[in-house]
């Protein structure tokens, strides 16, 4: 199935779509994945495994609701632990999707087309994981679920809008909705394709409903394109705002290590960084398993790698800045924070983070790494680990030692913390593979525009 990647001669960039593709071949190859009768073995295996992890997640959450957040490692002073770390990590991952589809679209980066669809899916599923944590990390989720939203009630009490946590609620839920709409309307024409290429009436009916009767009329396309462009225009500031708001959850506080003005850009860069790492972690196996090398070419991998390199450097700069500001302020608490990062009980994690997020990714300067899928895959894994550690360092190491020495404390995570974290990965994978099986993982109609025949000759 897998066609080997052929490196083009030096100086020539690989194409963004393999040679010899026609409207028909594109349609059949991509729609084929969905409409085929026989399900590939690896799909069954992965889904089974992911489902098991999902089961573990459900168990852990049920126990959590039954017993209370005490089953986690959190304590006073470290009131936030794995839950918030995971939340920020997942929401960060959830950024690449919209970024790719929206910002690259505005910049007319045609190479986005073959990866935007599943990048968007990835976003939605990642945000679903992220959204889980802020809810279950509260002491009384059943109340948080409705007191955090401005719902009329008999108490005459409303949310407290000065709290960054409320901003968070709005930002994340908006982000989820918008990404979902964006993804959804992108799918309509492809559903139409599936409707028309499906064999059995049932399948055609199902996709028919989803396609809402799309028929490719010029007037429709015209409005469709406008709406799509505008959505992209809206999603761009949104995607930037979401992680900025997330970063405000910390920046607004007084905690040394949180209370910093450069958190928003720093967090956004980090988010894109991990987002692209996740895209690669998904794209590389996908193109291999489904033989999609013609659609997701080395060009895509290389570009993603470059974006990672760029954002990675921004993140590195932020780390430097954090340390510098700590020193420059000469504020005793900031200095202590820096010192704690470097020599505190958790300094090991800090050095690991430097290794994963700064040192190892430097290998992306090498063309050989950028052009070798399995190497990229490894780097991507390292980066995502590093990004998780970054959040751990920010959340735990800052809270662990703040102002009054007598209340300094330690944090140990429990098996429940782990189960829930791993569980969400399973849930994510599960959703993603189901998506691949049931929906076109690559935007068919946009792929069509990439081939020569698509142009109107005068």
């Amino acid at each position, binding site marked *: 199935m897998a066609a080997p990647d052929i490196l083009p001669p030096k100086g020539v960039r690989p194409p963004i779509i393999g040679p010899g593709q026609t409207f028909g071949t594109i349609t059949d190859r991509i729609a084929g994945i969905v409409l085929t009768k026989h399900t590939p073995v690896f799909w069954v295996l992965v889904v089974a495994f992911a489902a098991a992890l999902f089961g573990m997640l459900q168990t852990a959450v049920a126990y959590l*609701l*039954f*017993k*209370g*957040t*005490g089953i986690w*490692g*959190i*304590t*006073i*002073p*470290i*009131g*936030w632990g794995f839950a918030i770390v995971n939340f920020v990590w997942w929401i960060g991952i959830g950024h690449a999707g919209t970024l790719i589809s929206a910002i690259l679209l505005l910049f007319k980066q045609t190479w986005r087309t073959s990866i935007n669809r599943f990048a968007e899916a990835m976003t939605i599923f990642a945000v679903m994981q992220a959204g889980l944590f802020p809810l279950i*990390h*509260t*002491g*009384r*989720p*059943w*109340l*948080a679920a409705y*007191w*955090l939203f401005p719902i009329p*009630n*008999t*108490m005459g*009490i*409303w*949310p*407290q809008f*000065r*709290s*960054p*946590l*409320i901003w968070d*609620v709005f930002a994340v839920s908006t982000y989820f909705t918008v990404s979902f709409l964006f993804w959804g309307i992108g799918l309509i024409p492809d559903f139409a394709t599936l409707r028309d290429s499906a064999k059995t009436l049932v399948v055609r009916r199902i996709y028919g409903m989803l396609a809402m009767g799309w028929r490719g009329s010029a007037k429709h396309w015209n409005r469709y394109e406008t709406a799509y462009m505008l959505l992209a225009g809206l999603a761009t500031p949104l995607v930037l705002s979401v992680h900025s708001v997330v970063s405000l*959850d910390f920046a*607004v*506080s*007084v*905690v040394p290590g949180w209370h910093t003005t450069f958190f928003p850009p720093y967090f956004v860069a980090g988010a894109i960084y991990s987002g692209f790492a996740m895209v690669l972690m998904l794209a590389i196996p996908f193109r291999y398993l489904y033989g999609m090398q013609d659609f997701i070419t080395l060009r895509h991998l290389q570009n993603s790698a470059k974006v990672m390199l760029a954002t990675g450097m921004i993140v590195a700069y932020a780390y430097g800045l954090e340390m510098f500001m700590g020193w420059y302020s000469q504020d*005793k608490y900031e200095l*202590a924070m820096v010192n704690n990062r470097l*020599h*505190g*009980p958790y300094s090991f994690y800090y050095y690991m983070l430097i290794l994963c997020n700064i040192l190892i990714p430097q290998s992306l300067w090498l063309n050989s790494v950028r052009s070798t899928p399995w190497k990229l895959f490894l780097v991507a894994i390292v980066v995502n680990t590093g990004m998780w550690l970054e959040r751990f360092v920010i959340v735990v190491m800052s*809270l*662990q*030692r*703040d*102002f*009054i*020495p*007598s*209340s*300094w*404390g*330690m944090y140990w995570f429990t098996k429940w913390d782990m189960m829930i974290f791993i569980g969400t990965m399973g849930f994510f994978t599960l959703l993603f593979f189901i998506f691949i099986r049931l929906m076109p993982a690559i935007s068919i109609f946009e792929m069509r525009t990439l081939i020569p025949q698509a142009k109107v000759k005068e």
Partner: protein
Amino acid sequence: MSNKSDSSPNLISANQIKPASLELEAVRKKLAEAKGPKYWRTLEELSDQKAFGELLEREFPRQASEWVDPVSRRGFLKLAGASMALAGLAGCTRQPLEQILPYVRQPEQLVPGKPIFYATAMPFHGHALPLLVETHEFRPTKIEGNPLHAASMGATDLFAQASILNLYDPDRSTTLTHMGELRPWGEFAMALNSEVRARKALQGAGLRFLTGAVSSPAFGWQMKTVQQSFPQSKWHRWDPVNRDNMRAGSKLAFGGYYDPIYKFENAAVVVSLDADFLSGAWFPGFVRYARDFMRGRKLENGDQMNRLYVAESSPSTTGAKADHRLVLRPSEVENIARGLAAKLGVAVTAGHLSGDQQKWIDALAADLMEHKGKCLVVPGEFQSPAVHALTHAINGALGNIGQTVSYIDPVEVDPVEHGQSIRELIADMNAGKVETLIIIGGNPAYNTPVDLEFVKALDKVKLRIQFSSYKNETTDHMHWHVPETHYLEAWSDARSYDGTATIIQPMIMPLYDGKSAHEALSAFTDQLGTSSHELVQTYWKSQHPTVDFETWWRTAVHDGFVKDSASPARQVTPKIAALPALPAADPGAIEVSFRPDPTIYDGAFINNAWLQETPKPLSRNTWDNVAMISPAMAKAWGLYLLNDENDHQSDAQRILEVEFQGRKVEVPYWPQPGHPDNAITLFLGYGQEKTGRVGAGTGYDAYKVRPSTAQYIGAGAIITVTNRFWDIAVTQGHFSMEEREPVKVANLEEFIKNKNFAHEHPDEEPKDGGDRQESLYPNFKTKENFYQKYAWGMSIDLNSCVGCQACAVACQAENNISVVGKEQVQRGREMQWIRIDSYYEGDPANPSVYFQPVPCMQCENAPCEPVCPVGATVHSTEGLNDMVYNRCVGTRYCSNNCPYKVRRFNFFLFADYDTPSLKLGRNPDVTVRSRGVMEKCTYCIQRITAARIASEKEDRDVRDGEIKTACQQVCPTEAIVFGDINNPDSRVRKIKDGPRRYDLLAELNTRPRTTYVAAVRNPNPKLASGTERA
């Protein structure tokens, strides 16, 4: 509100002086059945199907007394389950039907919903602490000191505060047993009577009584009558923490027993020779002494303050407050005493003194000579008789007797030296001379000197009867066990350290058919069945034949003491005839000190969860006792120290094996800064095999190695470091201030030079009551009319705080604060709202120690508030940082953002929803917090509200001092002052305007309402620094 009071009548009937109404039976039955859970038990134990179904129905638990009626009894299970409760949907779920049970006949003095206060006293090992007890519908809920009484002046100590929990302890002995089998009282009475008759025939030969030290005149009188009709019988005394040294010392000096009474208010220079008079209740008169002493250090008028020298062998809070602290090994204290005495012209000779010690003594002696008659030397309870004798002599030589110290006849009834007394008893038992042994209170099988082998001897006794409020180690060797009443359950009387007598009146009928010590004796005076009330009254009648007894009795009971019953001072002159030779101390030998545990005393309080979870003042560990050694020793043995990198809330501490006189015990060590080298301090009271669910499996048993020959001090211990570990739970992670100066301190001269040393930085300029300097925020006082009428504020004097922990326990009692258990404390989830940080500074061999109580600061710019997404913590118009439990969803952001870390979170269902007896003791005016809710100090909002409502009804303002927070009220040293800072005449306002006031973390501009008064130390200029090495 009402639903807490309305249904309580049932309990009162439990109190009506006519016995057993039907409800009472119900109550007792419930209590008997009540297999109460561990206090910190959590949800899994009680998932009950029905309960689960009803989860939605309630947000917070039904409160005290509600359990009596079946309907809501079920409600309890539900609620126990209800930590899971989809609680707080209260808005859109139905409330269950609730019963309301009025009295049948309402006691006339009772106004339902309003507390009543009764005066009484807590007897404590030979003296007593006068109390006022708050009762709600005749359920005692909170203990305060008796302000009218000289021995309390309104303050109390942590034992008194926590004693109320013993009353409601579900693990108390609830049943009368014979060889472990349930028996009715009648059967016991018969058995006892026949025995009495038999003994009478024999002149009481073979009849022995064993009690602790007793200060009850009525009991003494009963004993006398017993002695008359049973001339051969003997009354033995044993308290593991006794005053033998003091007694022997006074015999040496005066040839008889006298109790010293100190007048710290008259002393400009105080010297403590291992005397821990600022630590707690085992130093009789602590409450009063601490207040008098600290009044000399307030610097409120002028720059005069007293000076404290402490020479001590085991770090104590007294040492922590010292201006000069000399670290000594236990055996060296006597030598210092001799040296000092010699210098002051007492005819004794000292052994070898080190250079530092000599220098110290010289300076000290000089200082004392300057203050003849205005100074005071205090001997340590646990130091040798010689030290006591010497200090009497020294005080004599300095002309202090009559000025700063006076001597009265012992307060203890028929004082004896306990060590001697118990030795005689055991000897007689072994000799077969003892046929009947009546043990009232105590736990001799556990705490008598190990070398005497009490238990072995016990088996030779034919009939053994125990009156005790707990079934303990001793019970196993008894024929009969009779539950003894708690002091709040029965009439009695007692005398405070100065001899003043108090009538102890009960607050509630015995919950478990208990019998009082008086009733125990009544059998031997042919008065079996007579109530304690009668017995006590009869005695006092006999004392006051002339007066109109009814009124006399009423006033005595009402005031809480018998007028002018304080013992008169005796004119005595100490003379040092022949002191026993100074025991030769081998500097190489490791010396052992045995000390009562700071929070559970001699073990009597081992099943008291509040005290178990109260951190020991210096080591800050809970739920265990540690063995203190010096950091140097720890280092030498390669053990870890407090200044190690990791913060250690919970530590696997290395276990030491301590061998003393051939007996071994395994102890977790604690590297205590300021502990002498080549010495180890073991704390008594833990490691009991037979105790309740709270005490079970806590700590090690130091009695295992405590011989009669070395009750407090011994030399020649052998210590081996094992490879095993002991998890201890410490509430403080870090003992160094890390150049952040949470505690500001200066020497007296510095202070006189620069009064504003506490806030030199402009950021630290105090700001109060919304009178703000420049700020981006609006001025809520002027713009939004906040803080107009009242602006509550608190001031904590770091000079006065002795870290005795009483405030922490008082707060726990007042605010229904849950206990979480050792495992949770190790995780850092302790709940006490006010914590007392202790910091060490300087040379670990003899550091300066500082205490800092930290409650909620009630910041005007509270960082916790804006980050709460649901507005569960917001500011009131009086400047309180309100915490609305029922609105809280538990994001914990407020705690993260609290720079003082004073917020506590219910990680589990910590509150005990279903142990009936515990509900009785709760404060009905404070919500019991459910799972997933943040909580914190509220300045005792319930007290503020009560006082405000009272004042409004009388159409006046709240008077200064009318509101006392629980922590303020209990504080023996008046370190905590609370009041309205808008009122220019209020005490708190005045203190806050004083120069030493400072705000904690002022640079954050949180504008705390709780502020501190910086500490000032008064070292002797002639001595280099406040801290010398021994």
